[in-house]
């Protein structure tokens, strides 16, 4: 296997989100005609999903559910060692087992973490494949490893990568003069915040089916990124991308772990080639805990200077992060951007260790960084005896880079503060953190969040009209559960005067026009404007056709209520279907999501407010209520947007209170690779959640004024709970998950300090 192989290249770094953050520098100077003042009938309303029936009847075809004729079951053998040299692998006994059709090597070089793929087999059924795995003989030479961050940082600990130190500096950031800034401050404090490694634990484990037909390969994949899977697979297999088709109709959760090519897709493709039969490879829950990514841990030390009037004079961050054998997350973005501050400095380090490679996890870096920064902001405010909301308002800025950069195209964070504070009853909070009495302490806190979410210029979509009156909306995007199918139907129907159910939506196929991966809150602000563009062109064309029927000029025609009608004279109308009936053949309109005007920063914002109860006897934290207010520009569908926000809050709560990967120092293995021991929030932990939106429309971001919403609700959701706990008990638990032992320990320390 001397091929250029992205399985190995993938281990380089986790700089995915920086790539599209910098996408924003690909500005165009083109002026946009904005729809910002339009009143819509469908867009912005509560619209039920057009595919709801498929989901609730169990008929939605998830990749896991697909079975092809003659399909074999593939399985992957994984290393039990955290670091080892592979001396030999014997596949022949496995191959000779009746029912086994192929056994292949999947490793090159040394084992770097427990769970790493070593070999793969394909057999007629699952139990034969399992048996075949047992029959593969691998001789390992175990080597010293390190799986705990603190140990990896120690002098003389086993080196993870040959050519890199375990602690490696990464790109930092600096503006102004922090030392001078600290000099001007009345108070300077320093605090350290920690976050644990988190596992995506998608409901549907990673699964792919590969089928070759001659030189052509079709992949059914549980993925967030059909085009990336195609392109990366082409590189691995060294075949032209034009010969690969990737299909994804329904997917059981991704959260970043399915953002590109995964190992099971490579294994399925290779096994299918070898056997000349379709092969399905589905990972187990355990494998999904080990090998498909994780959210890196962070250790963030903030130093901040503040004047008595609340002016922040300087902020600095020293960050360490571990993404296992891959790079970690950059947690500095909130500190660099959110609050006004002239002087700022970031020093950032990766810690390498022998654990599975990280992958973006819903709002990579920003969840951790917001927990750190927003916690620190509360502590700074408390130092000068200022209300943390007032403190944030005092340091509000409408320009990025803490007020030193370019203006935000739109920023509704101030409105979010106002709406949220009112909803939660901000005045009810403890004026002095922890001033309440009794066993159960109540507290109210808040946290602000920033994200990108402008979408990808260059996204393409088609609207196709048929002479029989039917309409297609086509885009090579994917619906990962955010309701993209329905968004596509809404935008097309709105523009053509139809209902969402009248639109046949086609997506999830890499043969369709290009759209970006579904991650980073990219999908809606990429796809919706592209479709709007295509539908407007279609409408224009049809109006021209209707004009001669209605004997008025095309410019005085509107599409409404399944008709083309004269503006102000709805009686002079012709049915939509009739106009399409005059087409001699189908006709396609291509739409594009255009560039972003220069000179502005394009970001989404949100503020969360929460109320919690802390049981000082047991250390248990109970979240009572969360209010989330988001500025994501124009919301296309309020119903699915609310779900998006509720989901983000639930996951953020889960991160704040429960989630952590636990590594065993002795064996180098993860001790909780399942859903019982890896705790996540359940039905019993859910508070009252109030999702709200700042009704704003970005004037220049795209023709719909819409921004992304995937990441934003996840960002302040963990920080807000920590800040509420601080308000309740007067101690900041600076480490998530805030498990009861940490709460009790903190309470004990406070008692001792008294």
């Amino acid at each position, binding site marked *: 296997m001397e091929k250029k192989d992205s399985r190995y290249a993938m281990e380089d770094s986790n700089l995915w989100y920086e790539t599209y953050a910098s996408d924003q520098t690909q500005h165009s100077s083109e002026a946009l005609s904005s729809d910002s003042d339009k009143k819509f009938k469908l867009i912005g309303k509560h619209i039920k999903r057009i595919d709801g029936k498929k989901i609730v009847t169990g008929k939605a075809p998830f990749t896991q559910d697909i079975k092809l004729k003659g399909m074999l079951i593939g399985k992957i053998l994984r290393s039990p060692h955290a670091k080892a040299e592979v001396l030999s692998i014997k596949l022949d006994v496995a191959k*000779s087992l009746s029912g086994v059709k192929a056994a292949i090597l999947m490793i090159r070089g040394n084992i770097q973490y427990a769970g790493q793929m070593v070999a793969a087999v394909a057999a007629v059924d699952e139990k034969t494949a399992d048996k075949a795995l047992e029959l593969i003989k691998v001789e390992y030479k175990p080597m010293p490893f390190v799986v705990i961050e603190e140990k990896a940082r120690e002098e003389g600990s086993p080196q993870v990568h040959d050519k890199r130190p375990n602690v490696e500096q990464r790109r930092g950031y600096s503006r102004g003069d922090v030392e001078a800034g600290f000099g001007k401050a009345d108070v300077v404090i320093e605090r350290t915040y920690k976050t644990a490694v988190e596992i995506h634990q998608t409901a549907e484990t990673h699964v792919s089916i590969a089928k070759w037909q001659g030189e052509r390969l079709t992949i059914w994949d549980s993925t967030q990124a059909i085009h990336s899977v195609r392109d990366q697979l082409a590189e691995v297999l060294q075949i032209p991308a034009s010969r690969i088709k990737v299909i994804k109709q*329904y997917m059981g*959760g991704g959260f970043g772990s399915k953002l590109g090519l995964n190992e099971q897709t490579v294994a399925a493709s290779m096994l299918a080639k070898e056997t000349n039969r379709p092969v399905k490879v589905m990972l187990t829950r355990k494998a999904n805990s080990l090998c498909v990514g994780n959210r890196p841990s962070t250790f963030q030390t903030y130093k901040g200077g503040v004047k008595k009037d609340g002016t922040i004079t300087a902020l600095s961050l020293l960050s360490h992060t571990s993404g296992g054998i891959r790079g970690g997350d950059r947690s500095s973005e909130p500190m660099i951007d959110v609050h006004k501050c002239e002087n700022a400095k970031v020093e950032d380090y990766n810690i390498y260790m022998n654990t599975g490679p990280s992958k973006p996890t819903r709002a990579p870096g920003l969840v951790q960084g917001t927990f750190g920064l927003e916690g620190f902001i509360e502590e700074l405010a408390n130092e000068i005896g200022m209300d943390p909301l007032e403190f944030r308002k005092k340091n509000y800025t409408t320009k990025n880079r803490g007020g030193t950069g370019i203006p935000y195209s739109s920023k509704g964070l101030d409105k979010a503060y106002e709406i949220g504070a009112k909803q939660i009853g901000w005045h009810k909070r403890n004026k002095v953190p922890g001033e309440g009495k009794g066993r159960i302490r109540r507290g109210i806190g808040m946290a602000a969040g920033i994200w990108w979410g402008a979408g990808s210029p260059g996204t393409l979509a088609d609207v196709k009209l048929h002479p029989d009156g039917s309409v297609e909306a086509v885009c090579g995007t994917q619906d990962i559960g955010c309701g993209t199918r329905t968004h596509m139907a809404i935008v097309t129907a709105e523009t053509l005067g139809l209902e969402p159910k009248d639109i046949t939506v086609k997506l999830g196929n890499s043969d369709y026009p290009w759209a970006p991966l579904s991650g980073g809150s990219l999908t809606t602000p990429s796809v919706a404007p592209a479709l709007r563009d295509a539908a407007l062109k279609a409408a224009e064309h049809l109006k021209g056709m209707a004009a001669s029927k209605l004997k008025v000029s095309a410019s005085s025609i509107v599409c409404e209520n399944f008709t083309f009608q004269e503006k102000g004279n709805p009686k002079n109308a012709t049915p939509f279907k009739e106009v399409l009936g005059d087409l001699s053949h189908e006709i396609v309109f291509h739409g594009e999501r255009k560039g972003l005007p220069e000179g502005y920063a394009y970001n989404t914002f949100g503020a969360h407010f929460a109320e919690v109860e802390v049981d000082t006897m047991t250390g248990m934290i109970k979240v009572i209520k969360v209010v989330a207010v988001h500025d994501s520009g124009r919301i296309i569908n309020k119903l699915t947007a609310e779900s998006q926000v509720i989901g983000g809050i639930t996951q953020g709560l889960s991160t704040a209170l429960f989630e952590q990967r636990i590594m065993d120092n002795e064996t180098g293995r993860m001790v909780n690779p399942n859903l019982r021991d890896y705790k996540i929030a359940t039905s019993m932990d859910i508070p009252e959640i109030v999702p709200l939106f700042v009704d704003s429309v970005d004037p220049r971001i795209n023709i719909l004024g819409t921004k992304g919403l995937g990441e934003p609700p996840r960002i302040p959701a963990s920080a807000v709970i920590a800040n509420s706990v601080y308000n309740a008990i007067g101690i900041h638990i600076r480490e998530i998950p805030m498990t009861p032992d940490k709460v009790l320990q903190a309470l004990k320390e406070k008692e001792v300090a008294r």
Partner: protein
Amino acid sequence: MNKGKMKKGKTNTFTRRDFLKGFGSGTLGVAITPKLLAQKAESIQTKAGEVPVYAKKQIKFTVNSKAYTKVVEPQETLLDVLRDKLSLTGAKKTCDRGECGGCTVLLDGNPIYSCMYLAIRADGTNIKTIEGMAKEGKLHPLQQAYIDKDAYQCGFCTPGFIMASEALLKKKSNPDLGEIKKGLSGNLCRCGNYTKIYQAVDQAAKAGRS
């Protein structure tokens, strides 16, 4: 949780995993045939003790009011049989070890994790899956409520949740929020849309009473 549904963490009963562990390296290099499986099953019967172990067996059961006769292997779970032999893929394989409820179906009216239920035990039972909820193309009130409230995101956990909701409403037609939360506590939704799931169950309960 309701009767018939295995509790998380309780594994002192005989499970198929213990059963599979019965296969040592003795079969190395030998083709696994159903016959061998059966022999092996016999041979560990005494070891497993309290619970009877069967060889490959023909079972008769009813799924969504349709009678089936199927030959199942001793290690096969009800989930596998539903998905692979009956092509009823609504119930999902999410954890495959009784931790999430993605595979929930009703067995004689009680919700069970079908991934933890050996198919041979289903002999003579009456099973209902998500595919049996809609009648003649008309959605069950719960299904309609899940759509109306947008009580899902990716939708992968939805079949399991709807079956658990059905079991809950059969026991309690008028549950309060606490009862709904508890009734659904055996099911995980990683997308985290519980808030809307509660609303859906509440809507369906109200529809059922009107």
